[in-house]
């Protein structure tokens, strides 16, 4: 026994039978005749030829086209209205306001944008603001936040993470909320008025809660010091972000929508994926089943124009949209399904031809040779 363990052959590192089932010692060195070890596991061996893959193409085609049509119809049923209020053109009502490049101009600029809804919006209407050319997904921008601080951690509040640099401290005081994302928060105020055909301007009630993820509002974002009533005291000793007009504890009057748990703030902090994006701003709840949420007619959008976008050629939009089970209006997926389904079907036909023309010939030819 020692001889074998001493054996030079064994020592030089070649693989000895060390696999599962070391029954080898009992039965000499003869390998076990198991399906696995002899590589004879029962197997399915698909052979990819025109004949064998034909059904797959047709099936995919037949499944995808109806789905695509369904998606397309759904998407088309969604009503959406979009208005650009950047004020690039001289004619635009917000042109004057847009000339202001500064973040902290003392004089708030207000402009009024009229628009006309051609269709009544029956269900809940979601009001978005949209930004274009705004690279919220820039690598350094995305990183520039302190989740711990936003979660109400007092230590982080006093000493923001270095990720927030250079927006971590201002005049020696920690910035709350720190970082570039918070610093660049969208701060236009949008108000919507319905111009009744009889001439009166009715302000449409906008709900500013329920626009953020539930988990964000209740788990990720917390004010420092818990739910203490005195939110101002919690933020004592911190500085507001440089670009902000008012500190974080004055974002809203309602206690459950103020400070870090302000939903507008939370929505903003969820950085957009693409440079052109929209963010949910308000929800117009359907009030009664009788009247459409937004009836057809003239509307006025009143904008408190604070957010400068001209420096980076940005655009600002206001979007009104209803929503379906698949989200907002986007015909792409429906079209994609229809296209892919059609292509599959077409390829199926091509394969059918190939199969009929060549498949049999080549097979028989092979054998006869």
């Amino acid at each position: 026994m020692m001889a074998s363990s001493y054996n030079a052959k064994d020592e030089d590192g070649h693989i000895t039978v060390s696999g599962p089932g070391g029954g080898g010692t009992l039965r000499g060195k003869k390998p076990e005749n198991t399906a696995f070890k002899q590589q004879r596991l029962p197997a399915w061996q698909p052979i990819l030829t025109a004949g064998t893959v034909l059904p797959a193409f047709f099936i995919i085609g037949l499944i995808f086209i109806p789905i695509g049509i369904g998606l397309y119809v759904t998407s088309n049923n969604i009503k959406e209205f979009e208005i650009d209020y950047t004020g690039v053109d001289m004619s635009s009502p917000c042109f004057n306001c847009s000339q202001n490049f500064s973040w902290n101009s003392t004089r708030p600029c207000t402009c009024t944008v009229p628009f006309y809804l051609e269709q009544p919006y029956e269900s809940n209407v979601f009001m978005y603001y949209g930004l274009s050319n705004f690279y919220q997904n820039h690598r350094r921008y995305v990183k520039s936040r302190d989740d711990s601080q936003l979660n109400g951690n007092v230590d982080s509040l006093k000493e923001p993470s270095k990720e927030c640099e250079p927006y971590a401290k201002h005049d020696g005081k920690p910035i709350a909320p720190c970082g570039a994302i918070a610093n660049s928060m969208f701060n236009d105020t949008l108000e919507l008025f319905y111009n009744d055909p009889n001439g009166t301007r009715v302000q449409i009630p906008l709900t500013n809660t329920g626009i953020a993820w539930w988990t964000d509002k209740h788990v990720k974002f917390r004010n420092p010091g818990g739910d203490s009533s005195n939110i101002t005291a919690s933020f004592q000793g911190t500085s507001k972000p440089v670009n902000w007009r008012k500190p974080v504890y004055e974002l809203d009057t309602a206690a459950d929508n103020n400070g870090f748990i302000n939903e507008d703030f939370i929505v903003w902090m969820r950085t957009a994926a693409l440079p052109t994006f929209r963010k949910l701003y308000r929800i117009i709840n359907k009030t009664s089943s009788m009247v459409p949420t937004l009836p057809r007619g003239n509307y006025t959008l009143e904008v408190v124009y604070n957010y400068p976008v001209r420096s980076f050629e940005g655009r600002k939009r206001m979007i009104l949209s209803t929503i379906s089970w698949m989200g907002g209006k986007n015909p792409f997926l429906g079209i994609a399904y229809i296209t892919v389904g059609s292509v599959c079907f077409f390829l199926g036909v091509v394969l059918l031809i190939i199969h009929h023309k060549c498949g049999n010939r080549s097979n028989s030819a092979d054998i006869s040779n």
Partner: protein
Amino acid sequence: MARETEDPGMAKASKVKRQRKKKTKENKTRTVHANLLYDNAKGEENPNRHYANNKIKTTKYTVLSFLPKNLFEQFHRFANVYFVFIALLNFVPVVNAFQPELALAPVVFILSVTAIKDLWEDYRRHRSDKEINHMDCLVYSRAERSYVEKYWKEVRVGDFIRLRCNEILPADVLLLSSSDPDRLCHIETATLDGETNLKQRQVVRSFFDLDCDFDPIKYNSIIECEKPNNDLNRFRGYIIHRSGRRDALYKENLLLRGCTIRNTEEAVGIVIYAGHETKAMLNNNGPRYKRSKLERQMNVDVFWCVIILLVMCLFAAVGHGLWMFQYGDKRPVFDVLSPDGTDLSPIMSAIYLFLTMIIVFQVLIPISLFVSIEIVKICQVYFIHQDMELYDEETDSHLQCRALNITEDLGQMQYIFSDKTGTLTENKMVFRRCTVAGVEYSHDANARRLAMYQEMDSEEEECTSHGGTLPRRDSVTSHQSARVVLRSQSTKSHRRTGSRAEAKRASILSKHTAFSSPMEKDITPDPQLLDKVNECSSQMDFMRFHSQPMSQLPSDLADVIDFFIALTICNTVVVSSPNQPRQKVRVRFELKSPVKTIEDFIKRFTPSRLTSGSNNSSSSSLITNRSSNKGCSSMLSSPSAESTLTKLDEEQPPRDLEHNFGPVLPCYDGKAWNLEEGELRYEAESPDEAALVYAARAYKCSLVGRLPDQVTMELPHLGKLNFELLHTLGFDSTRKRMSVVVRHPLTDQITVYTKGADSVIMDLIKPPDTGKRQKKIVNRTQNYLNLYAADGLRTLCIAKKIMSKEQYACWLQHHLEAETAIQGREELLFESALRLETNLQLLGATGIEDRLQDGVPETIASLRKAGLQIWVLTGDKQETAVNIAYACKLLDPEEEILTLNADSQEACALLLEESLHYIQAKFLCSSTDQAAKAFHSNFTTFEIYPSSSPSSSSSSHTPPFMVHRLGLVIDGRTLAYALDKSLEDKFLAVARSCRSVLCCRSTPLQKSMVVKLVRNKLKVMTLAIGDGANDVSMIQVADVGVGISGQEGMQAVMASDFALPRFRYLQKLLLVHGHWCYSRLANMILYFFYKNAMFVALIFWYQFYCGFSGSAMIDQWYLIFFNLMFSAFPQLITGTLDKDVSAETLQQLPQLYVNGQNSEEYKPYMFWMNMIDAFYQSLVCFFIPYFAYADSDVDLFTWGTPFTTLALFTILVHLGIETKTWTWMNWLSIAFSIALFFTVALCYNASCPTCYSPSNPYWTMQRLLQDPLFYLLCVITPVAALLPRYFYRACQGTLFPSPVQVGRQNILSLSRVKVGSPLSPKPPFLSLAKPSPKGCNIKDQRSFPSSRASQEPVLQMDERGRRSPLGPRDSEKGLSDLCTLVPTEIDTLPYTKDAPPLSGEPWPPSTKDSECLDKTLEVSDVSLSSWITSTPVLAQTDSVQLNLPPDGDSQCAKYTRNSEERLKPDHTIHPAQRTEQAVEQLLHTTL
């Protein structure tokens, strides 16, 4: 004793001398003192203190050094350095892309996996080290005055250790004492060299005569020997006694570590080398690292990946610079300033970004690829190892993979270089026929018997191969053969045994019995010869009784008996019988004899001893020459004679060897005889020897016993005779012969029996002018030798020489001088041997058949069909080699043979030139269609493949080169010229266009040179296979070295990458496992590249939408673990288990192997195709979600997470398309992968609301799973992404399928039409067989059942049948063609039309003396019969002979084809025109 009372002055002098000597050769020798002398002294004074102790440590690491050392080793791999560099780059704040800690994860993971693997291996080594170090042995202790048990690790150089029977030696020990009366010690060295027989070791000569027990206390000698080295077969040194006397030490005195003491109760020795300095440990070098072709190819593509990476990074960097630039001074709010608030210029940002992108895109360089490849290869090795079909039940051994990382190379071989003996053949020697004193004994009955064995073998084969597992060998019905039963019993017996040691022992024993199978043992004697033996011995018996001198015996009878005596005793065979406890005595002294001293010689030749030399005391009258001894002894007296003369008076104990005086009836029933004597077992160093001893035994001349100084043999009528063994001059490859010097008990003459290769023996024969008879014998024997060779038999010549006492004494004097010489002892001994072996008298010659291994022709045929070029490199002579080549279908009777035999560099150059012209003229220029035709029928191209081009067999590196129906035979000398720098290109050009190449008489060095040449010049993949030590260099040079773990020890196996039990397993190893390993690994590597490129490209496309800021929408955790975890398992499973074609198909259609040879699974363009596909797929995977989420309120990571999912699905489905075989493991692995991803994602997204900056993906996955859009995306994206590939695969499978695909698709239908189709491997001979009613065949019926007869029906063919394959062009001129080549003398004889040319060789000139007629009659008769029995060499008439006469008188080489004979009659070589001498010379050069 006398030594102890030496005067101290002498000792001092010797010490001084030693010290002086030590100074001069400090570095060359090691001096060993006994430790006992220094036990009391402090450690520093012990002169042995510098030597390694016996503690072994094979571990690489210690607890402390593990981490640094292992890391250091791992960082030798460039990839690891690269990844660490990237990980460290992450710690630079400006460029960091990921959390620095996280970025370290993959590197740490990879490093730790490797480290854990190393650690585990090291731990195993440590455990076995510990076990070994703590074994016990007995070491002499001064304090206790006895041997005490100590651990192995405590043994030091200079210790005395006592060894008992069956103990393992703890160190290299110099044997000082043995309980054996002959002062011998037997060891088993199976663990060192795999040889299972016992070896004898001898007590150092100075201690030989010690009558009392060896007492270590009294030992005070000093040993000087060479430094530790790894040569197991060499040990030199001397022992210096107090007296100043020196004795030489040999390897026979050294017991090597790891060997086991056997049959010796007790032995004592002093440790010379310990621990790591022992020869066993020095021989123990670890596995070698080779880089496979696929890996080399892969590395190129890894390099391309780096380029792609850099291009992508550069692109992104430039993009970022431009993006920055467009904003000018108005810095947008989202372009965050650097942490210290400063602004970065676009250029600086671009530079930083470049580095960032390298980090982000690092996945493109597949970090896990290397680890995955290693894992897959280990699995592949495991499966190869487990293959039942590669397991040899007879030897209980399977294939060993000794190199772990070149499995896929097995699938890409293009050239196979094979040894012949032991590789193609079994190296089981079977005595076939012999010639004694010029008379041939054809042993037909023996041939019949062999044929019977063959049949039995094949039947047995069928049983096992057909039934697979069902019919166990036990169930084979008993009438089959005794051998079958025997074999199954032996396998059963060691299965039943409990312990491993026993099992091993049993396996060795069963291996041993296999070594001399009944086929080799039972030889049916030739009746004629048996009669002669009986007659002769009875005459001798008679003479002995009547005190007549033996010289009166008729010389031919004397030759017969001498012949058998030589067969019996001129060897080193050891006799053992199972009844006794393996009591074997064995002499293995090279060029060294039992006659130790001159005194010994005198002692032996004094009358008092002479009587005991013969068992028959009454026959003392036979002893003559007594008087001459006196003269000798006086002449040879030596100063120290007294010491040994004391023994002179000792009476030899009477030996109770019985002898049988009763007349032994001639017994023709070999088996019955065998039963009664069957107990004796012969163990021979080489199978030839055993075969000869068994042959002699068949004639009742059996070897009964062998002691170091005498050999006992039994002769019919004469009983047991003791031959006093004076010297054994062992066999070596330079002399090519061995000799024994004995004193003949009957004639009392000192006789030298020599046995050796015919080429050397023939030169040593006494000049023929001494006697007509001798001359005749020599000539006739030469003829028979040629015939034997043509028959594929191994020939040995037996010769003897009688020496006078004076001659012997003179020689002995020199010899003893040589033996005691310290400097250049080998050379001196060699010269001494040369002096002895001269002026021999030829007795006869033997023909031994080296049987082909099972399945060799089939294996070669199918390997060749697989497009492999097979070269056979052998040390055998041309005829033997050519015939074996025919027998194993390496050469085809239908193809032409180019034979290159040149005598000088120029001649060789000319020959090569001519052959090239010949080939070009014949094949390339003249008729291309013919060549193409030849090629097609030659290769039986798999014509159902439209894609396989005719040049597919040549590698892609080399220009297409036609392989013709040509065989090239070249001998060693010509090869030496051809391998010269100036000629090697031409040689290769010739050799490459030949279908098979046979190099005869090649040396080991030449073998390796040929392999190296082909490998380097043709840039092909080479495989060398061999079994012996002479193949080691070739095995090491080749890309893949395969060792046959056969009967010639383990050297070849130790040097090899793969070790096979049999040659035929090569077929499955290459065709099946090689193909699988290659295609699996190639596909896996390609897939890896695709996978990473596809994943990384997703991020790349995103850069266009994030201002080239290096942002990634995919969470960095997913990004990093995607490769390591989520997508890792399915590809490993597929890489390990996928089978593109089933094993059966691969073996049925060897053509599929071309797939790997041409690297068709992994071509450079495939990498790029995969890359393009990866980019396409990533485009789809990117833009479908992009548009689906365009202008929505989706946030970065909610958008990014589906990408991971999509990519995972796409990648898995892609793998699914590429997977050819789906087992439950594939399904499981894919399910596991998906489940793993979702589980990890869900856990990760639920674990911590504030961690994982910046993605902070809390609840993202959970929300996504509620979103129908997510599912819709997951369905459409993979479909759209993989549509083109799927479609392409389907079209390709139908329109232009690759051979492999056809093999897959059509295997069922093929198996239906296989019979008779060109696809089936069909022996070309079968159709040629025609029963022949011709007289000549009937006449030679007795010689018909040769062993090959059953394989090759061609033997039965008559003249017409033989010619039929040659086609119509030959048939009409058949006879005349033949006759032209046959020399004129034979031409005149009426029957020469049947005498075939010996592969176009010039016929050996028959003598023109008076015996001419008689002789030629005989020659032709023999040739006739030999034609019938011989291999198809004679059936082929299309042979090209390229011979340059050695005298060089003709300026041009002559080549000729028999069929073109009539056209160029001038080119025919007519040896008759030459002088006899010249032809003789020619013969010698061509043989």
